[in-house]
């Protein structure tokens, strides 16, 4: 198939960017979206134009490195990561816009590549259980009821891709943060730090310049791992409990 692509090009963090139009021909339906961009990049390289920078690593939908806003949808029209999106989801002759995640807390580095360091800093603020190596009791010392274990797992599936922020009209990272808080709050091991964790993570979130959550739910709809919006509810509840002391 043949496609018209409108892609955001930006030379560096402090350069202005613009949408540039490209055409690609003979794209196979079996290609992934990123392989289609690879093809475009080979063409650009052959013409002496600098290839388009975009992030990807595992190309299996698990590392969370990739992520593009495709015609206004985070990770494109399917509920999956950009690397697992295939060209059969598009039709011949389609015009596709490709933009980086847009959020001030995710500054653009180049073209479609953004800096998601803010996520690491939110985790640093408390997204962990303090368990020094070697201090752990036997794994069977504390059983975890299956429903809690299952919900912890669902929340733990977050791959840190940032699509939730990209899709949220408020550019809020509440789903990402709610996923981590819920994962740890559901487990007995996560209890001692439960209150302190949520308070400092939310502080860091606000400090990074993410927007506030108004429960819109676009995040959850865009999330390639289907993290449910109810994790935000858990975060809110933990936060209120913590603030009440």
């Amino acid at each position, binding site marked *: 198939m043949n496609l018209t692509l409108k892609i955001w090009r930006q030379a560096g963090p402090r350069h202005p960017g613009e949408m540039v139009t490209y055409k690609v021909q003979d794209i196979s339906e079996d290609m992934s979206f990123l392989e289609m961009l690879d093809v475009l990049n080979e063409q650009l390289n052959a013409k002496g134009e600098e290839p388009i920078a975009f992030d990807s690593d595992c190309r299996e939908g698990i590392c969370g490195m990739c992520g593009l806003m495709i015609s206004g949808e985070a990770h494109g029209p399917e509920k999956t990561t950009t690397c697992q999106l295939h060209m059969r989801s598009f039709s011949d002759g389609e015009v596709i816009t490709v933009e980086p995640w847009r959020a001030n807390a995710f500054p653009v580095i180049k073209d479609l590549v953004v800096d998601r360091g803010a996520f690491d800093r939110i985790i640093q603020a408390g997204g962990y*259980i303090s368990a020094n190596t070697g201090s752990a009791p036997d794994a069977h010392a504390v059983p975890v009821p299956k429903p809690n274990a299952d919900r912890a797992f669902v929340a733990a599936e977050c791959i840190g891709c940032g699509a939730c922020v990209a899709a949220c009209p408020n550019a809020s990272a509440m789903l990402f943060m709610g996923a981590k808080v819920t994962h740890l709050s559901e487990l007995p091991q996560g209890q001692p730090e439960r209150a302190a964790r949520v308070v400092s993570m939310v502080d860091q979130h606000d400090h990074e310049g993410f927007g506030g959550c108004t429960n819109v739910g676009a995040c959850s709809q865009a999330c390639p791992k289907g993290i449910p919006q109810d994790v935000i509810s858990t975060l809110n509840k933990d936060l209120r409990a913590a603030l009440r002391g």
Partner: protein
Amino acid sequence: MTDTTVNAGIAHGLYTEGEPVADTKAPAGPIAGKWTQRKFDAALVNPANRRKLDVIIVGTGLAGGSAAATLGEAGYNVKVFCFQDSPRRAHSIAAQGGINAAKNYKEDGDSTYRLFYDTVKGGDYRSRETNVYRLAEVSANIIDQCVAQGVPFAREYGGLLDNRSFGGVQVSRTFYARGQTGQQLLIGAYQALERQVAAKTVKQYTRHEMLELVVADGRARGIIVRDLVTGEIETHFADAVVLASGGYGNVFFLSTNAMGSNVTASWRAHRKGAYMANPCYTQIHPTCIPVSGEHQSKLTLMSESLRNDGRIWVPKNRDDCDKDPRQIPEEDRDYYLERIYPSFGNLVPRDIASRQAKNVCDEGRGVGPVVGDFRRGVYLDFADAIARLGKDAVEAKYGNLFDMYARITGENPYEVPMRIYPAVHYVMGGLWVDYDLQSTIPGLFVTGEANFSDHGANRLGASALMQGLADGYFVLPNTIRDYLAKGPFEALADDHPAVAEARGRVEQRTARLLQIQGERSVDSFHRELGNIMWEYCGMERSEEGLLKAIDLIRGLREEFWRNVRVLGSGDTLNQSLEKAGRVADFLELGELMCIDALHRRESCGGHFRAESQTEDGEALRHDDEFLYVAAWEFSGGDGDGEMSTPVLHKEDLVYEAIELKQRSYK
């Protein structure tokens, strides 16, 4: 069949042989007591002094992330590097199946010794007993540690951990978290690491790529990195350097590894004097989604667990290969694994399943689209399982894998049999290390997939995760202190000749890659190298093929340094430049892999030499000749892409606790 004439490699002047190497750190005595003894013997570092000791860790996968967190907790000054935008994205995240541990929670007869035994046997008796025993010994602690960190392993209704059996092993010792075990383990290590970053014991450098090792006065003392965002070349010093930079399966271009997985960190260390061990040992995984066309950038693994219920077959007649598989009657199907290996059937080890798939496709009985000149795929059929268990049960077990398959291929595996084909998945080879995980360069430690130590010629499923975490949480922190206790070493000045040399080399290389401005893209070289490697150094290797491959690689490498086109500049994010550096190193590694494969004129584990097989086509080892680790020394070649004849050092493998046997799965 043993060939007593001069080895073909030597005959062709491809390598020379040097002094043997030996692991001198494993204490004497019975195998079960060695690790305790070693921990006791290793010097201690006073907590007050730890702050003054700097450790650099390259890599944030299971091996590097866990080591960084643990050394940070201990109070050392740690700097950790990765090329991704966050430590959490290291390739370990992609592991699906599970992690082994000798917990014996199922009371099914598992034990440290049995895990040790299975791993050695699975490795086709080409691994070092002492290391493997230790691995089995610490495996149970890994699970405890991970649970304490909040890793959400699968649990039973009673709230206790669930296990499954994996990869043809007879006990249930694999802990798992749905199909995302690697992700969950890595996030656990990552969170522990971020906690140390907050505590300021660890400083993390993301989007930084190590491009050179600094070796001064005989010790590894630092690294040269490129900040991938600003392009700045930086020097970082330390008292010890740990490489946890993962595997190099991407030398094949198409593999199940992440796009960025590379050999650069290891190869640069190799060029500086670290021996590279058994580089030709590659694991080819049988259940991957087949290549669909020329555009393909990577291959996707589907969990081995599919082989528990799926039946593998191809048509008996070539003429049926393009038919709808549902129209092919039972009597015209060849369930070749069940036919050849009646007792193990579809559950034979990875190397065997892969090779047989290749054989039937080479015979022209493959299925799916014609790629290149033949069809590369076999059916993995769930029709029987669906009839037996019901669609719902199959969906409950494998739903996420089926969905992934459907997304990638556009076919519905509940209706039409899946197609699978083998793909490069893991490398058992890597930098040589002793029992302390120290390479031949003092102060350079290597952990995880980047070292060679634990899996011999073939790795069992679910044991790479175990090894990465064993190394990082439990082994390295205990052994590195023996070395660090000698520090802190004298500070190095930026104009120290060793530092200036390393930095200068990186700067020149970067500049040169940008100057060539040739005709061909980096990817085109990588693809071509991959084809050569797959064709001649893949599932089956022969003397003739390997000699040809070496020639081809040399030619390609020469062309690369003359004709590659890398656009853009060095002082911004430049992904072509990053790839170019990695491909340049693959072009050197590929040659060494072929030389290693050529010299090892036996078949063992993942290394199958056409010249060394039994009458019915099974791998034939030659323990009399090849019961050793091949540790290769880089012998010079100053310019980019230049390598002179490598030197082979043999480490003899001694089996005391386990008796050598010929593997059989018939």
